[in-house]
């Protein structure tokens, strides 16, 4: 007998609250995506009053129409999450979370007669504190009260959703976003006590890219975040071995020349004789404790903060392979070999490509981790998620489809349905 009932097949719904993007929607091949941000319309904006804007908070694609000066952005545009976490007392941030959630329901609410509300699975960062769960349940209950769209809601950690989307029951999921990297061993359940969260991610690669641009005479561009990110993606490389890569790049600068024209503009960026620095952009994700980065830290580039788990302090600059081993080490000895059989890398921060002809010095993220763990004497299988952008949402949809409807939320287990008529 199928565990998926017909109603759930139609009305399963998933939400992935990423730091940058909110992905949402009912069962489909792909979710809807909007930026995780909201614009607070100033009360005294006469122009907006004249054109009849009555909304207090604007979310979704419409936000772009409200963006004015940089000062406006700082004052009125709110990105509610930092490293996947919303501060408990940040009222504006929680209002944005509520509005993007509402936006999703408004966009996808079916008008069919049998619709009694979605089965919603929301995915949060593995390090999201308990109050975020409470707040999110509260928001869904309120929206159900207003719109009748949430029959039941549950919350799962994003790495679990990744494992589900990858159809893997036992694995280690490494999710690396803009601000942090979470390592989560999973064996049918997320092993919460073994989760290691590093305070680093794409932001570090952005920071070193900005420093490199400054060093190459593009200081004026280094403050443009989007441009820096673009340069990182187009120019950055992950070296198999940083020292070797730098040596080769300095010997043959023409081969490794980093030249990039910003699309739609006349701006051209040429790292010239500093083209070897393109390897630093990728390396910092995997090994920010390499000595080459010391000079950058001394010049003011932020050093990743240490993570404290109980009595243990995990250095912020620990090599990623080492951190994965530390996480696995917190699980039972018996389980560890099974975990090492599949390490799944997820998140935009692992989408590194190798340009043709550079395979001898550059590699992708999976190869880099494999090499790092090999140095520790561990033979592992590492793979990238097939769909790094949507895998969390996809796993959450499967969770909505499969979790039994009578399995109620338990704060001890941190799973089950938070149900209309029972919890709200």
């Amino acid at each position: 007998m199928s565990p998926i009932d017909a109603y759930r097949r139609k009305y399963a719904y998933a939400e992935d609250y990423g730091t940058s993007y909110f992905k949402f929607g009912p069962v489909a091949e792909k979710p809807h995506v909007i930026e995780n941000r909201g614009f607070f319309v100033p009360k005294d904006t006469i122009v907006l009053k004249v054109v009849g804007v009555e909304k207090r908070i604007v979310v979704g694609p419409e936000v772009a129409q409200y963006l004015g000066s940089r000062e406006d952005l700082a004052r009125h545009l709110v990105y509610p999450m930092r490293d996947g976490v919303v501060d408990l007392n940040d009222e504006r941030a929680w209002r944005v979370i509520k509005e993007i959630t509402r936006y999703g329901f408004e966009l996808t609410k079916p008008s069919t007669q049998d619709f009694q509300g979605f089965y919603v699975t929301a995915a949060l960062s593995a390090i999201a504190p308990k109050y975020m769960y409470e707040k999110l349940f509260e928001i869904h209950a309120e929206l159900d009260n207003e719109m009748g769209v949430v029959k039941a809601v549950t919350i799962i950690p994003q790495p679990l959703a990744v494992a589900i989307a990858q159809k893997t029951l036992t694995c280690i999921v490494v999710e690396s976003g803009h601000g942090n990297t979470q390592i989560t061993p999973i064996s049918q359940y997320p092993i919460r006590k073994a989760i290691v969260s590093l305070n680093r991610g794409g932001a570090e690669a952005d920071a070193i890219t900005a420093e490199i641009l400054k060093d190459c005479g593009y200081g004026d561009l280094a403050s443009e975040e989007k441009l820096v990110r673009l340069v990182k993606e187009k120019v950055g490389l992950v070296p198999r071995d940083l020292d070797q890569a730098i040596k080769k790049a300095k010997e043959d600068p023409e081969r490794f020349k980093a030249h990039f024209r910003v699309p739609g503009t006349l701006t051209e960026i040429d790292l010239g004789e500093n083209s070897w620095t393109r390897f630093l952009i990728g390396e910092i994700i995997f090994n920010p404790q390499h000595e080459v980065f010391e000079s950058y830290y001394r010049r003011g580039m932020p050093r990743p903060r240490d993570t404290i788990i109980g009595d243990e302090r995990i250095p912020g600059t620990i090599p990623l392979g080492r951190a994965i081993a530390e996480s696995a080490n917190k699980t039972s000895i018996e389980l560890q070999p099974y975990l090492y059989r599949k390490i799944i890398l997820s998140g935009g921060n692992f989408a590194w490509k190798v340009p043709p002809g550079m395979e001898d010095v550059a590699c992708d993220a999976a190869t880099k981790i494999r090499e790092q763990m090999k140095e520790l004497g561990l033979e592992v299988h590492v793979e990238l998620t097939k769909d790094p952008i949507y895998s969390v949402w996809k796993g959450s949809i499967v969770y909505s489809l499969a979790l039994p409807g009578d399995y109620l939320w338990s704060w001890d287990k941190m799973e089950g349905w938070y149900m209309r008529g029972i919890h709200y």
Partner: protein
Amino acid sequence: MAVPSKLMSIVRNYFLDHGMEEIPPSSLSLNPESYLAFRDANNILVVKVVDAEGLSLHKAKEIIENSIVSILNETVGTVDKAYLALKTPSLSVLPPPSRFKSSGIGLLLIDDKDTIDEKIPPRPLRRLSIVYSEEKLSECIERLSKLEEGFREVKREISDVLYKRIENNTESIRNLEKIVEDIRHQIEKMEKIVEHIYHQQIERLSSTEPPVHVPSSTTEARSYVDEDLPEFARDNPWIDTLSKRRQT
């Protein structure tokens, strides 16, 4: 010889009383001490004032003769009418009237009571014509040519712009027609596919329906649902694992 200003004033008032407008004689290169100049509509009129009182007969005749000659010399081609205004105690000093008539110059006599009497009317001295210098004409012709050239250029540009617009619009219309045609084909294709699927479903349902036992709604749902799930949910071991979660 200077003319008493009183005499000048009498003559001036005479012409002003006749509705004429005084203009400076110097604008016609005439001596303001003996000439007055007036404008009557488009006509320019000058008056040479001569005071012959107190002069000997001989001298007065000579001055009057010279005045006629100087009027002709000094005003030829620039004025329309000319007068000689004369104050003299004796008419015998005057040349014969034919002298005035042949020269075209009018004669005004001023008596002791300062009354002016037009004895001989003047005759038009020049034909009204606008004379432009050769240089001025060349300049005008050149400017006209430039204007003509400019007009031609503007005309050419407007024609080009219009032509391009028409061409672009024609191209856009062609593209739109192509898109519409493509969409029409796609719709036709989709209609065929939908029809095909519909027939397949009908056939499948009629062939899979058990002859006696009616399957439960759940079984029906599974056979339909599993095939229709997105790829990431199909054959996913988590479906079974999660579905076994129970309250303890």
